[in-house]
């Protein structure tokens, strides 16, 4: 055991000599990838070329514009297609008894060998073109932490025929099924069309609205009529009055944004299914145009996060995300990969949480946090209110500001003050935690309320934090560190007694001083304690 410690986590398979299994034949990807690339880049060329042609054409002539755009588009499509053809020619893969291997590269040949026992996930996805052609993109994940998303999808075969992909997925994940099959294979959740109505409740709808307005200006600008929208609005306001124009305009933008949000949700979650498969795997399958299939070893699950965005919470909906190792970077963990259940009725979400966590989940009942937590949040709100009022006074003192602007700002300030106070009370009352023999649960947040339930054995470090402000309110924060998900899951602003209890249960046992004769002599630092 003289190897450096970082190797101890990656399994022994690295060091096996490559013999005995060299007889498996090398195989190629599906050649139709070249056609797919050609079509995709033709699409890109059309999307980019048409506005360019119109833009250049309106300044010079259509002929001149086409003379520039057509060869450019041809070059783009040609180079992309040729590149993909060369990639296809040079890529080979094979699956041996112990490894998956891929050789690729043009100038620098790279050869990737992945030990099959390190494979933790095999995901199939197919965008609409691949689906028409019966192809899939296969990605193999090893569950390695660190290095972000690239490392978590160690090996990609893009594309292989669907049947071949499914065969490989089955084969690569089919390991020691016998021992780990404690819970039956069955379906845990299925898509309900009415869940899609939760989608527009997200704050993203506002974002989509802003983007839509931006796109509208951009498109009119391509046609050299950047001021078109402003002029139309001014004309309408002149005939119908500002009030009506603003009201109808807002409504229109919100409706379009809501429809867009619904469309995105449909595309991402259509035909969603969550299955527990034999061999201790969870599998999420979903997607309308691009079909996705994410598989996840239950051994890697460290906990579950039930997320309730404000809009969804008001409508009684919640989303379930898994806290699992090897799902890649933080950014990825926040998006699709870790989502086990899209926004769905709370009861369904709770059901999934209980399924994933198992029987101990029934024992969790959250303890609220003390009044000091509310005082702390009200103080934060106080600073925001102070800044708002000062801002308004500054506007007032600035001098010649029209009365309607001052009044409008005042209304805005009042609304924001009410909102920040409301937020403080809501955030404080949402705080809570629970500790059972097997689980640690923690809830926090207002705009995005998150209830995390972690397996205690998945917690790999502890931190207690107490700022001077917390000390004066008799509060403290305990952070559970995991190798999964966001990495840090805090129990925020519990009373000192509550945090003390958690620390006594979890930390104090680790802090027993070293006895005599243990190891190579206890270091005793410099100065006396």
């Amino acid at each position, binding site marked *: *055991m*003289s190897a*450096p*410690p*970082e190797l*101890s*986590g*990656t*399994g022994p398979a690295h060091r096996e000599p490559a013999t005995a299994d060299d007889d498996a034949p090398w195989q190629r990807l599906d050649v139709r990838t070249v056609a797919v690339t050609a079509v995709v880049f033709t699409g890109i060329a059309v999307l980019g070329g048409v506005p360019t042609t119109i833009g250049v054409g309106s300044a010079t002539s259509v002929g001149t514009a086409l003379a520039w755009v057509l060869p450019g588009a041809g070059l783009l499509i040609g180079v992309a297609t040729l590149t993909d053809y060369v990639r296809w020619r040079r890529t080979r893969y094979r699956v041996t008894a112990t490894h998956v291997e891929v050789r690729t590269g043009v100038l620098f040949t790279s050869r990737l060998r992945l030990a099959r026992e390190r494979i933790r996930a095999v995901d199939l996805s197919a965008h609409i073109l691949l689906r028409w052609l019966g192809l899939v993109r296969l990605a193999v994940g090893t569950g390695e*932490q*660190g290095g972000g998303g690239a490392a978590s999808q160690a090996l990609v075969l893009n594309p292989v025929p669907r049947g071949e992909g499914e065969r490989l997925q089955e084969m690569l994940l089919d390991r020691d099924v016998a021992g780990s099959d404690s819970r039956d294979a069955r379906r845990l959740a299925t898509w309900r069309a009415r869940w899609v109505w939760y989608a527009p409740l997200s704050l993203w709808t506002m974002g989509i609205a802003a983007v839509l307005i931006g796109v509208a200006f951009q498109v009119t600008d391509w046609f050299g009529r950047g001021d078109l929208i402003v002029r139309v609005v001014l004309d309408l306001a002149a005939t119908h009055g500002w009030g009506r124009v603003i009201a109808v305009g807002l409504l229109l933008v919100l409706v379009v944004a809501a429809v867009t949000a619904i469309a995105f949700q449909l595309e991402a979650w259509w035909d969603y299914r969550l299955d527990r498969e034999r061999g201790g795997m969870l599998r999420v399958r979903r997607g309308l145009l691009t079909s996705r299939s994410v598989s996840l070893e239950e051994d*890697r699950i*460290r906990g579950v996060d039930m997320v309730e965005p404000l809009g969804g919470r008001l409508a009684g909906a919640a989303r379930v995300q898994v806290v699992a*190792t090897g799902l890649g970077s933080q950014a990825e963990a926040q998006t699709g990969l870790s989502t086990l259940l899209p926004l769905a009725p709370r009861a369904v979400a709770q059901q999934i949480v209980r399924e994933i966590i198992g029987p101990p989940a029934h024992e969790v009942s959250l303890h609220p946090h003390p009044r*000091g937590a509310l*005082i702390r949040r009200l*103080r934060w709100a106080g600073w925001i209110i102070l800044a708002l009022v000062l801002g308004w006074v500054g506007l007032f003192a600035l001098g010649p500001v029209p009365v309607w602007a001052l009044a409008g700002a005042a209304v805005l300030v009042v609304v924001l003050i009410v909102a920040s106070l409301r937020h403080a009370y809501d955030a404080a009352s949402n705080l809570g935690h629970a500790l059972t023999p097997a689980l640690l649960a923690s809830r926090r947040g207002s705009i995005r309320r998150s209830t995390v339930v972690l397996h205690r054995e*998945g917690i*790999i*470090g*502890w*931190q*207690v*934090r*107490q*700022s*001077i402000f917390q*000390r*004066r*309110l*008799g509060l*403290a924060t305990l*952070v559970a*560190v*995991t*190798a*999964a998900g*966001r*990495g840090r899951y805090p129990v925020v602003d519990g009373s*000192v*007694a509550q*945090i*003390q209890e958690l*620390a006594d249960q979890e*930390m104090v*046992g*680790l*802090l*027993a*001083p*070293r006895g005599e004769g243990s*190891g*190579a002599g*206890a*270091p*005793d*630092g*410099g*100065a006396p*304690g």
Partner: protein
Amino acid sequence: MGEARAATDQAGAAREPEVVNLRPPSNRYDSRVVGWWRARLALGFAVVITPLVILGLLISPARIWLLTPAAIAGVIGLVLTVALPTWWYRVHRWEVTERAVYTRTGYFWQSWRVAPMSRIQTVDTTRGPLQRAFGIATVTVTTASSAGAVAIAGLAHDDAERVSHELTLITDATPGDAT
């Protein structure tokens, strides 16, 4: 804020302890770390002050506008360089217990960190040029979490060697992939 403080002080005295009761780790940093911290602070301020002074001497019309901030920064820098490291030395503590690496840092933002032995993946010892001049080193203990690293940034060279050697032995002997 003043009256809120008085109110909580009264309430706090009646109710429960205000500080989490975790025993402090047994060891202080090596006392030479104070010199290292001083040198770092001094260098940091020098980076700000030196250009101001040089420009102030070269550009006579703007002299007052350059030398005044330089002088202010100098005074602040001097005070902090003298006071802060002594303060930090008092509040930084560490210990390797039977089952974990344990540190406590900060006063205004106090933080106790524990990394259990069984979860430690790597042990790194680093010595920057400045640290070398003061004969100290940093031992960083990393776990599988992106958030779990515990650093002891101020051990004597031979203490650091010993600690990291010991930890490497212990973690090598621990089975599992520590996640």
